[in-house]
């Protein structure tokens, strides 16, 4: 590979993209125009936007005490936090003065006034019928309640029975009440009243008398009658009503406070009587912190979305577009190697991804700053002048953008190369965007912070770190996170780049013709052209199927579990595990093997292995178990805590209520059979068809890990999957892997049950210690098992794979018949 060719390809592609009007528009012009245009749009919207006033009807307004709640057709402005809101609520009352005024106005003035008068008359009449309905309903309910209380021998005055009363009133309602309630609600919905306030008669008088009584000291608390309460009717499911209600609530609260203040002052009591604690809150947020908070929400999301978009369109043009226009073949026959071509194209996509992201961030930042400084008042008034992120934050942003753009550029290029045409390529954008936006959304939620585990996740690590650093660019803790985040992100980027190069090296991908797809034809092909072992994509599909079934079974298993009693729970859990293994993991793989392959035996490697392989499979679990336990104990801090369900399952493993044989069956026997059939059988055989055993083992252990869902187990299972895959490939039989799997899991079950006993026996002190979370091994055990494991694994690694019938046949099918290949080698 020479960099000269990479540079040549790169320069040509960049020039080509810069000459393309569409790309330029997407990448440069759009962001420059988009944000100012959005700003203008927002300004216009705020100017044109006016909220429809909502109608509040008050019946019995004459009984409202001083100070004046209503002024004209609105609530008095003084009850609102900002006076403009008063116009948003129109108040219609049945006050005698108003009613007469309306009548005269209706007679004298034009039709519009008459309209409004008749309108309010209508509203008032429906308000009255609502009041009647309400009172009727109250009566009914009280009557029924009294009946029920009598029936259940409850005393309404006794405290214990209050709760019972509530239950009764909640559950046992007669049809009549239910119907009345329905009618009532319907009537309210039809009345066009958003909030109805019913003021009881004599409310004003009662308030005044209490005030007077307090002032002259004649008030006798035990003699005061049940206080009258105004009733506010609203419908929280109706947005209009709900908005109006919240405003009315605020008004009533302020008004009530004023009433209280009046009452206190009349009685000569201090105004602070009702607020003995009266906390004072001090907000220490600085202006730049508020701004940083804003940027930390906006920038990571925008950076990710724009890095994808910026990479995607050029990638489509450079990959699928070039195939479509026939220039791909021209390029492939030039002396530039595939790697050089891919790198040249990759750097082009990378440049566009980075520049799109930066341009968008700049434009958003500047437009946002300008908009906020212009708006001044309103919701933004607390922010004041929004400072742009500090220099160090911007440096961090640039550093983090590089691995992000690397990942997306390589990913997009691989997808674009895979696509047959630009049109097909466009279809891949939506899923890619959805996944990245989903990850970003998760990161945006305020509770999510960067943790060791998140730091190694693709995209999420970067988003969370950037979010943290925009808030506090000097945080030392976050700076430490930069190491794993950058390292893993670059690793993901390189992996994606490797995939893109693979795509370019595959002639099936480069010369895929856009042939017509027919489902029937394809199914026929699947069943007709069966081969001894499954294909790569069939193996992939098997994994997807297992994951889907697992997802679908979650609810089913959860439901069954919910209904179990505490005693049967553990046994049920184990049974469920067995069923899950058999139905979700074992059967699909076995079934696919039967239908889609010619040779069940070769697919699942049903062979008698070499005796020393069996020996290795017996010894290895005992050597690896201490190492695995130690490793996961050491790495415990790294992973998020175990979910409840997993803890329960682990509890069931050692619970005394479950028989030992059942625990062994659920945790050791069925997994050893089912998981091996699926992952070392069908899936490994399928992946092995690429002819690269190492890759096949790695992929099968990756799928094996992912199937375990919980991060800790994913990690452990992946490592064990490598050993299991190696055993299977080297022995040419699935048996050693099954033995290993059974012994490894069985050991865990035995340990969880008899761990205490083993640890307490004096002879074992040399090898195990009892720790808080179960058995731990001593350094001596670890050393010995490490030694044994290394020796066996080393021997396994350096033996040749058993050239089973399956492999030989696979080679033949792939066309690598030895007699035809050798001449080219000898030349």
């Amino acid at each position, binding site marked *: 590979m020479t960099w000269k*060719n990479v540079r*040549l*390809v790169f320069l*040509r592609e960049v020039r*080509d993209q810069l*000459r*393309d009007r569409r790309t330029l528009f997407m990448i440069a012009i759009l962001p420059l125009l988009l944000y100012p245009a959005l700003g203008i749009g927002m300004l216009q919207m705020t100017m044109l936007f006016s909220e429809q006033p909502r109608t509040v009807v008050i019946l019995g307004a004459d009984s409202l005490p001083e100070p004046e709640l209503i002024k004209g057709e609105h609530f008095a402005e003084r009850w609102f936090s900002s006076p403009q809101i008063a116009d948003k609520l129109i108040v219609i009352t049945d006050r005698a003065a108003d009613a007469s005024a309306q009548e005269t106005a209706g007679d004298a003035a034009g039709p519009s006034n008459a309209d409004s008068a008749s309108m309010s008359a209508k509203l008032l009449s429906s308000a009255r019928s609502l009041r009647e309905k309400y009172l009727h309903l109250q009566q009914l309910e009280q009557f029924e309640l009294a009946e029920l209380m009598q029936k259940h021998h409850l005393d309404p005055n006794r405290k214990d029975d209050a709760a019972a009363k509530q239950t009764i009133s909640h559950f046992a309602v007669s049809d009549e009440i239910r119907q009345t309630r329905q009618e009532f609600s319907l009537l309210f919905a039809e009345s066009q009243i958003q909030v109805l306030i019913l003021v009881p008669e004599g409310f004003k008088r009662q308030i005044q008398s209490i005030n007077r009584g307090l002032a002259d000291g004649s008030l006798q608390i035990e003699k005061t009658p049940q206080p009258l309460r105004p009733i506010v009717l609203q419908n929280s499911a109706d947005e209009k009503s709900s908005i109006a209600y919240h405003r009315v609530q605020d008004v009533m609260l302020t008004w009530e406070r004023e009433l209280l203040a009046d009452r206190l002052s009349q009685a000569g009591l201090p105004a602070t009587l009702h607020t003995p604690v009266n906390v004072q809150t001090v907000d220490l947020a600085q202006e730049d912190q508020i701004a940083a908070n804003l940027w930390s929400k906006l920038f990571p999301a925008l950076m990710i979305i724009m890095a994808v978009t910026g990479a995607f369109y050029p990638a489509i043009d450079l990959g699928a577009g070039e195939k479509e*226009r*026939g*220039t791909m*073949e*021209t390029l*492939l*026959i*030039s*002396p*530039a*190697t595939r790697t050089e071509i891919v790198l040249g194209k990759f750097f082009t996509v990378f440049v566009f991804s980075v520049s799109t992201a930066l341009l968008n961030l700049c434009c958003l930042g500047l437009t946002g700053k300008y908009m906020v400084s212009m708006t001044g008042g309103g919701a933004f008034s607390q922010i004041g002048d929004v400072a742009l992120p500090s220099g160090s934050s911007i440096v961090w942003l640039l550093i983090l953008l590089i691995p992000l753009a690397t990942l997306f550029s390589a990913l997009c290029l691989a997808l674009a190369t895979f696509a047959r045409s630009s049109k097909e390529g466009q279809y891949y954008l939506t899923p890619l965007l959805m996944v990245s936006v989903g990850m970003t959304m998760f990161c945006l939620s305020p509770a999510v912070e960067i943790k060791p585990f998140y730091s190694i996740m693709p995209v999420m690590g970067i988003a969370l770190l950037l979010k943290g650093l925009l808030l506090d660019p000097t945080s030392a803790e976050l700076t430490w996170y930069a190491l794993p985040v950058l390292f893993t992100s670059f690793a993901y980027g390189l992996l994606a780049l490797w995939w893109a190069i693979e795509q370019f090296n595959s*002639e*099936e991908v*480069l*010369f895929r013709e856009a*042939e017509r*797809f027919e489902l029937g*034809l*394809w199914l026929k*092909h699947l069943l*007709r*052209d069966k081969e001894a072992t499954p294909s790569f994509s069939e193996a992939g599909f098997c994994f997807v199927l297992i994951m889907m079934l697992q997802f679908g079974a979650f609810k089913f298993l959860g439901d069954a579990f919910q209904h179990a009693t505490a005693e049967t729970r553990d046994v049920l859990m184990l049974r469920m595990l067995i069923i899950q293994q058999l139905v979700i993991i074992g059967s699909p793989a076995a079934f696919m093997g039967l239908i889609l392959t010619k040779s069940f035996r070769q697919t699942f490697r049903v062979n008698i292995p070499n005796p020393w392989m069996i020996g290795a499979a017996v010894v290895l679990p005992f050597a690896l178990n201490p190492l695995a336990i130690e490793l996961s104990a050491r790495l415990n801090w790294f992973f998020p805590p175990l979910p409840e369900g997993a803890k329960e399952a682990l509890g069931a493993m050692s619970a005394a209520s479950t028989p030992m044989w059942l625990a062994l069956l659920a945790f050791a026997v069925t997994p050893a059979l089912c998981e091996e059939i699926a992952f070392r059988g069908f899936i490994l055989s399928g992946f092995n068809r690429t002819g690269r055993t190492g890759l096949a083992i790695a992929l099968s252990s990756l799928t094996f890990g992912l199937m375990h869902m919980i991060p800790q187990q994913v990690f452990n299972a992946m490592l064990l999957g490598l050993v299991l895959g190696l055993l299977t490939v080297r022995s040419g039989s699935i048996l050693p892997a099954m033995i290993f799997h059974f012994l490894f899991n069985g050991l865990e079950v035995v340990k969880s049950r008899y761990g205490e006993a083993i640890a307490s026996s004096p002879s074992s002190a040399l090898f195990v210690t009892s720790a808080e979370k179960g058995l731990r091994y001593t350094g001596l055990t670890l050393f010995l098992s490490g030694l044994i494991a290394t020796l066996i694994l080393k021997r396994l690694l350096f033996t040749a794979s058993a050239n089973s019938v399956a492999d030989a046949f696979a080679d033949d099918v792939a*066309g690598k*018949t030895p007699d*035809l*290949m050798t*001449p*080219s*080698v000898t*030349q």
Partner: protein
Amino acid sequence: MIHVENLTKRFADLRQGSVLALDHVSFDVRPGEIFGLLGPNGAGKTTCLRILSTVLKPTGGKALIAGYNVAADPAKVRSVIGFMSANTGLYDRMTAWEMVEYFGRLYGLPEDKLQPRLEEIFQMLQMNEIRDVLGGKMSTGMKQKVSIARTIVHDPPVLIFDEPTSGLDVLVARAVLKTIHTLRDQGKCIIFSTHIMREVEKLCDRVAIIYKGRILANASVNELEQLYHEPDMEELFFELISRHEAQLAAERV
């Protein structure tokens, strides 16, 4: 110069399962010779030439070009061949000059030799007036000229033309054939595929008739006529194909 022996290529096909696109194909081409590959559409011509140009890998057999194996040494092979087909497109947003210059650089021509070479080719193919025309704005004839210029920019000893005249009008096709003839006279080793009998008669020193992935005959045009006592190339072609079909049918029974 080109040595092909038992070349075999198998594709997976949705409709027919596995398809044998090339079935033990063998032939040789010497320098200063135009070798014609004559066959109907889908006979395996393009597959064969794509293997020779290293974009496809053979399933079996071997092919040597100037002593380099196409499967083992693709980079070396690519540097000694010039390949042109109906599928090798031009970049729409590049001028004729830029296009040929770009490929000259990819072939590793040093800058001081590249410019004179470009002038020479543009002179030879009479394309000085389209120097600064973008690929997207060119007519088919212009495009074909640029493609030829790209193919020969590094002066390769072996030239592979895969149906270079398909879709061209008579005038342009004639010009292309003439250029190929000139190149032969310069001592190039040329392999040329087509489904047009006339072109073979006019141009090729030797011809192989390929059908369903197999070579049915491989000789000079005159030899073929004598061998099968059929002076008309077209008749001869049909004769061979129907004979092969009959043979296949017999095998099937």
